[in-house]
Structure formats: C-alpha cells, structure tokens
C-alpha cells in the first residue's frame, strides 16, 4: 500500500477563490492510501516545495499528488522537489484544478466537487504508480553524413568545427553535388564554383572529416547514439594512395563515348574519369561498363600511361563498418524525367532543354564552353522561351503535386544572365505564378523584367512544335490578354520539377526514417522540429526534406549540424522512462505492435520463457527504450494485452476512469 501525500495549492486566489481548497484536502484524507493532506498558498514556491519534502521525510510518503495548475506548468518542478527529498520523481502526479477547474467554473460548490474528483483520479493513479528509472545509453562521438552536396558539406563542416569526427558518404566519384553543376547563383549572381569549391577543399582538408566518395551506405543497425553502419566503397579501379591526379589517363583513354553525368549527358567523357576539373578527391574512377579493358580484356592504356602505377583493374568493392552517434541525411534531388511531358517536345528536339542543362550550357566548363548556342546546330539563338512549372503542381501521376520552389528564381536568373551577356537575344517566360518569397527575391525578379526587359507572359504552354526549318513553335496562353500565342523560338528551356534522389527510399528504409508520398523525408514536427526525423538520432539536411534553394539548404544544414552536435555533446543519453514494454508471458509474437510503431522501436527475439513451470522458446516483442517515444500506439494494437506503457499503464488509466465515474 502506498503512503500518499496530497498537497492542495491555493495559487493565491486563482484556485482558492473558486475551490474550497481545505475541503479538497479534507476529502483527500478519506481516499485509500492517503497518509497526509494539506493545503498551502503557493505549492510551487520554495516554501511550498519544502512542505512536500518535509512531509516525504517525516511521514515516509511513497507517492505525491499535487492539486494545482496544469502539469504542463509545474509537473517537472514537483518531480524534482520529490527527487531531492529522496522520492522517485515518477511517483508524483498532478491534479489540474486550475486550468481545468477553478478558472472555468464560477460556482464554488460545483468547482469544489470537481476538484475533489480530479484529486481522487490522481490519487487512484498514484496508488498504481511504480518508481521509474530513466535509462541510459552511450553516445558514439562520431557523425555520418549521407550525401556530399552543399547540404552534406556544410553539415559536416559545422559538426567537425565543433570538434567531432564526421564521415561523408557520397555515391558519385566526387563531392560537390548539384551545386557544382550550377553556373551562377541567385540572387547575387556569384559564380557557383567560386563559392562551393573552397568549401569542398575545406571539407577535404579538415582533420576531423573523412570523405568516402564512390561509396554507398549498405546497412544500418542500432539506434540513437549507437548506430552501426556498413559502407560499401565501390571499386574505383584506381589506387587512391598512389594516384597523383595528373589526368594523363583520362587524356589517353581511347573510350570517350560515355555520356557525361556531370554535363547531364550533353557531351561525353572518357571511361576513366573525374566528373569535373575541381573534383574532390582528384582521383579518377574507371566506369567499368564503358571501359574497353573491362569489356573486352584488351586495352590497358591507362595502366601503361600511369607513372604512379595507380591503376588497379583487380580492385574489388570493400565494406567498411563504422559506429556513429548521429546520422544526417543529405541526399539531395534530381530533376524529374520528362518522358511523360512530350507535348514540350523534349525528346524530339535537342533545342528543348531543362534548366539544369542550361546551367551546363552557360558554364565555361560545359559542353559549349559557356557559349550560348543551340545544341542541334551550334547556332546562336535569337529567341529563347522559358516554360515554368513543367511537372510541378501537377495533380495527376505525370508530375509532382508540389511547387518545386526554386524554378521561378533560377529562371529569372537565367533570363537576366542571357539578356546581360547577349542583349540581342529576346527572352520570354511563360509562367503560372511567379513565386519569389525570400530576401531580395522579388526585387531580383522585377529587375529581370524592368532592367533587362524579360517578357513575362502569364499562361502555360500547351505544345512545343518543332518546325522543319529547325525552329520551334511555342503554342501558349496569354491569360491576361486572353489570347492564344504562337511564338517562334530557337531554344526552349523547361523549368523541370525536382524530386528527391531516388535512392532516398532505400536509405530511409535502412534508417527507419519516415518518408512522405513524394519521397521527401518527414520531419519530426513540421513547425518545431524541422531538421529532425521522427526517428531519434537521424537529422535532415537540404532538399531530401523538401524543395529549397541554396541559402535555405545551408541554413538547414547548419541547423541539422547543431542538432547532431547537441546529441554528440552528451556522454550518455537519458531516456524517457515512460516507454512501452511487453509482458513476455502474454506476448504471442504477432507483430501487430511492430506494424504501428512509428519509430521502429519494436523488434522480436526468440526468448526462453518460464510459463508456469513450462519452459519454452517463444517469439517475443522487445521494445528498445532508446527509440520508444511513449506514444502508446502499440499498447492498443496488442491483441493479447501484453504491451503496456509505463507511467500510463492500462491499470492506471482505468483507475482514473473509475475514480471519475464513481
């Protein structure tokens, strides 16, 4: 039997004016288990807390009920007070007789009656409380960043600068990501490479950062603070320790017909290659599907010309296993495939290109060396039409239901850059809405219109019609003029919707991080926890969480880093003791609980149990307390009543129900 102390707070007159507090205390003494009851002016004050401590010690109390304000206000205060007096803090419960009683009722008798009932419910619950211990788990002081674009680089730098080890795993042969493919950046028009490459160098030179390029995460196990990750380092066929990055192999490689990923397939590269000149690491890889040596067994030119003897045709994939305390996902995006939007003739004309392809065309290191020219015949265009929202804001399965967010701004950027460099080229933009929420963004767009004379037409394009003479006929709407327009153009640029990197599904599954219907990773709270995944220890950086531009990505990357640092800074993790646990004698291993758990906290073990003298091995649900957040979904899903939630057990809640309905 518990020895419960009930403490009724006046809260000045906040409670006492409507509730007869001494009556509540008096009634409390009639409740089973109650050994002490008193009322006081301000229970939360030093003096009030001292009264509780004194009663615990003097009367040997095993449980406390404080009738006061909302537990959201002072539950923590009273639990700490109890703990200081030597009582387990989870033996304290609050009866909310202020917000839920005195403040909303006027009649003293009625309010007092209700306060008594709320007190009884709390007493009934405490009678069934058990001391709970917050668990502890260790924290490996190392972070993993998946993805080596600007998001991943920034997150890694911030974590490393705080003094923690960070590994970046990047799928392609170099870090840099999408940003390395961009020519200029809005709204300042500075060169993308000029601001990105120093960060890439900094990351690669940082003593706390290890970069695994041409590598992929293969397997993840463990939980917050203690993840174990297998990383597959794909065979580069080049010894990273020997290669000097001289580039002779790439020059001499006779196979030069593989489409260049970096230039979006607009030109070709050699079979042994680095994606771009500033690649980090500056060590090439052999594309074994394109390599003549790997296809036919004959060639070996790269090996012959390599002074350093770095070429290794025998190299094999290697799996490394590492432990991490925190994992940041920064897997980024790609543009959607346009094969279901052929009304824009993307597959029918070389002069219809995506905006990302235009970035490469405008870039000095791109397929046209930065000259704006038609990819079909190399001629300089005179009329360029941009089409917005290609595949974005689409209700059917052809495109994406969301706004891709970055297109309005980069199109204004492209239009402006073209008009600036080639004043004789006319630029027309077909738009549905121009969306420019961001610092200096609308000003930027207006500059494109007002200073650079870019022609913005409100209305979507219905069809792009290639003409026999090589020009393109753009058939679009001018909604403000109520006209159908037929505009002749030399080039058409499609603001193609972006989508999360297709690999993210696989990665999210490994991490048990949830993902939405568009394959964006879900944040723990849309407003208040935007860079955390609902799965503890997993953080989100960049476009993997939702469309965003570079400044936003960098800001979020920093935020994700801070959250990861906050985790790594702890030596031990205290876990919420109000977690689920299953009664192994009742559990029948049916998996119902596992299916509803949003945190992947439930696993199954074959365990030997002693069921009334019968020893047998059974499949039993086991809750990982480090992962469980205590929502209780599993407790209701459990058909056998084996699963229960500590602190909010079935018996406790039923006791409250009974007390209220008595």
């Amino acid at each position: 039997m518990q020895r419960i102390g009930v403490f009724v707070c006046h809260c000045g007159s906040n409670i006492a004016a409507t509730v007869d507090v001494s009556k509540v205390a008096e009634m409390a003494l009639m409740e089973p288990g109650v050994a002490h009851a008193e009322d006081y002016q301000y229970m939360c004050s030093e003096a009030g807390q001292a009264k509780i401590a004194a009663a615990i010690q003097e009367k040997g109390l095993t449980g406390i009920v404080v009738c006061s304000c909302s537990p959201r206000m002072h539950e923590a205060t009273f639990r700490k007070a109890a703990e200081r007096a030597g009582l387990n803090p989870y033996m304290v419960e609050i009866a909310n007789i202020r917000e839920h009683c005195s403040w909303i009722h006027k009649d003293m008798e009625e309010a007092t009656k209700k306060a008594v009932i709320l007190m009884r419910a709390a007493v009934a619950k405490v009678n069934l409380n058990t001391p709970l211990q917050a668990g502890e788990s260790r924290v490996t002081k190392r972070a993993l960043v998946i993805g080596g674009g600007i998001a991943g680089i920034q997150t890694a730098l911030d974590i490393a600068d705080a003094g923690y080890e960070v590994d970046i795993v990047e799928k392609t042969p170099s870090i840099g990501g999408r940003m390395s493919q961009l020519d200029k950046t809005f709204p300042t028009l500075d060169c993308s490479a000029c601001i990105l490459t120093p960060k890439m160098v900094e990351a690669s030179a940082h003593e706390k950062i290890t970069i695994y390029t041409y590598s992929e995460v293969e397997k993840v196990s463990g939980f917050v603070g203690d993840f174990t990750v297998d990383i597959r380092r794909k065979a580069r066929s080049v010894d990273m320790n020997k290669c000097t990055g001289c580039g002779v192999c790439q020059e001499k490689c006779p196979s030069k017909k593989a489409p260049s990923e970096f230039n979006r397939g607009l030109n070709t590269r050699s079979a042994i290659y680095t994606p771009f000149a500033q690649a980090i690491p500056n060590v090439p890889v052999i594309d074994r599907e394109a390599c003549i040596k790997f296809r036919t067994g004959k060639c070996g030119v790269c090996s012959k010309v390599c002074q350093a003897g770095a070429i290794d045709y025998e190299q094999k994939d290697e799996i490394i296993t590492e432990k991490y305390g925190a994992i940041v996902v920064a897997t980024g995006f790609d543009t959607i495939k346009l094969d279901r939007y052929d009304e824009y003739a993307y597959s029918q004309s070389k002069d219809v290109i995506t905006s990302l392809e235009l970035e490469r065309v405008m870039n000095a290191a791109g397929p046209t060396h930065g000259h704006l020219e038609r990819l079909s015949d190399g001629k300089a265009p005179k009329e360029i039409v941009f089409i917005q929202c290609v595949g974005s804001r689409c209700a059917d399965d052809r495109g994406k239901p969301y706004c891709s967010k970055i297109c309005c701004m980069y199109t204004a950027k492209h239009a402006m850059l073209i008009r600036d460099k080639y004043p004789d080229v006319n630029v027309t933009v077909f738009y549905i809405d121009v969306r420019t929420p961001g610092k200096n963004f609308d000003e930027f767009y207006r500059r494109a219109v007002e200073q650079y004379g870019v022609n913005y037409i409100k209305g979507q394009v219905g069809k792009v019609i290639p003409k026999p003479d090589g020009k393109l006929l753009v058939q679009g709407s001018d909604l403000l003029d109520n006209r159908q327009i037929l505009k002749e153009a030399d080039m058409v640029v499609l603001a193609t919707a972006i989508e999360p990197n297709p690999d993210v599904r696989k990665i999210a599954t490994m991490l048990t991080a949830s993902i939405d219907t568009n394959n964006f990773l879900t944040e723990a709270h849309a407003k208040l926890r935007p860079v955390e995944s609902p799965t503890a220890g997993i953080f989100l950086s960049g476009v993997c969480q939702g469309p965003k531009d570079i400044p936003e990505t960098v800001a979020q990357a920093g935020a994700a880093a801070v959250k990861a640092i906050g985790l790594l800074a702890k030596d031990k993790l205290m876990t919420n003791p109000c977690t689920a646990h299953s009664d192994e004698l009742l559990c029948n291993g049916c998996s119902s609980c596992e299916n509803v758990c949003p945190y992947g906290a439930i696993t199954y073990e074959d365990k030997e149990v002693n069921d009334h003298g019968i020893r047998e091995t059974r499949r039993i649900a086991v809750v990982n307390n480090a992962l469980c957040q205590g929502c209780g979904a599993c407790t209701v899903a459990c058909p056998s009543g084996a699963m229960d939630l500590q602190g909010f057990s079935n018996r406790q809640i039923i006791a409250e129900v009974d007390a209220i309905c008595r």
Partner: protein
Amino acid sequence: MKYSYYPGCTLRTKAKALDAYARASAAALGIELVEIEDWQCCGGVYPLGSDEIATKLSSVRALNEAKVKGQSLVTMCSACHHVIKRVNDDMKNVEDIRVRANNYMELDEPYAGETEVLHFLEILRDRVGFDELKKKVTNPLTGKKIGAYYGCLLLRPGRLLNFDDPENPKIMEDFIRAIGAEPVIYPYRNECCGGYISLKEKEMSKNMCEKIMESAEGFGVEMLTTACPLCLYNLNKSTGVKLPVVYFTELLAEALGVKEEIKEEVQAL
C-alpha cells in the same frame, strides 16, 4: 489466333477498303477475325456525360458477345476503338454505369468489363510483334517516307486508352518500319483533324488539316497513313498541300503481298 472483330458502320460503307485490306492481311498473318453477330454502330463519339447509359449499350452488347466467346475484341477504326475501350473501362470501373447498363441489358451474366479491347495495331505490336511482322513482309515498302497520322481518338485520354504515349507515340512508326518503309516524325501527328466539326464548320477542319499537311510535308513526308475514316476524309479535303492519305491496312496488305489479290475486290467496292 482467333479474335472477335467489330468492323463498325463506316467499314461497311465508305471505308470498305480499310476492312478488306485488314481481313486479307490478317489472313496472311494467320489471324482469324470473326465478325461478331448483329453488331450495332458504336455512335462514333464516346458519350462524355457521366449519366449517359443508353448511348453506351451498343458497345456493351459487342463487348459481351466477345466475352461469351472468350475472345478479345478487335477494332480497326479509331473511333470505334475509342468508344468501345472507354465504355469497357466504364463497365469495369464505374459502378453506377455498370449497374444501370446491366439493368437494361438483362444478360445471362452481368457484364463487368471482362473483355479485352484491342486495336488491330495493338495486335500487330503485342501479339504478332513487329519483329515477326517484318519477317513476314514479302514486299517491303523500301524508300517510302511515310508519316503516321494518329489524330486524337487512338491516343487520348492516354491513361484510359493505354495505347501509346499520347504525346510521343511510336506504334505506327514502328509499324511503318516493320513493313520496310521509313517513318517520318512530324509534330502535328497527334493534333486533331477537326473530327465531326467538318460537317457544319468545314473551314475550321480545313484549316486544321492544312496545318497537319504542311507540317508533314515540311519534314519530308510523302504519304500519310491513318486508322480513321473520318481523319482520312478530312485530310483529303485539305486544299493546300496535298499528300496521299492511305489506311494503314492498305500498306500492310501491300507489304504482305496480298494487295494485288484483292485489288479487284476493293475496286468493286
């Protein structure tokens, strides 16, 4: 290979050639087209109203007959194909239409979209296979630059008809390649010829067809081919550029070397 065949009204009158060449080619390919009994006209256009039932019943009747025989239903005309495929989709997926149509029909067993509806081109692609077809061609149409004219009804709405990519189809181009000719892609191949508008607004459809012809000629098309009698009629009315327009079955018959055999028969039609 045995199929139920729905010729449709026009193939019995103005487009007998489309039908005759199809039958001859089918025979040459070992395909048996069994005309369903007592078929009625599909109505030419699919009734869009979600409350239209009576106008869909002739299609349901044909579909059910094929179902009873356990055969797929083959059409030759784009319009029949469009109407019957969409009605079939309604019968399969729209409960209200299914229930009400079955109430009218009083069939032994309710019809619920069980029949597979195929256009003859789909048979050539999916059942015969264009590679196989190529092997059976005895008289390849080498050197001929042929433009496919799809029009609207074969392709749209793409999700329902599931015939080919509605914006960049290739089935007819692949067909043209299989019979030894050179397909020419031009952008207006899936734009409307005007359809039924040509009855009252002759100018409108003329303008549209001129655009199609001009674009085709510009890309080097020497001859257009279509599956639709109405498209053929409208295109032939074009007053500007004039390219010959032929049914795809005529090209097929020619390539398979059976055109001559039935030449007299066709001319007598």
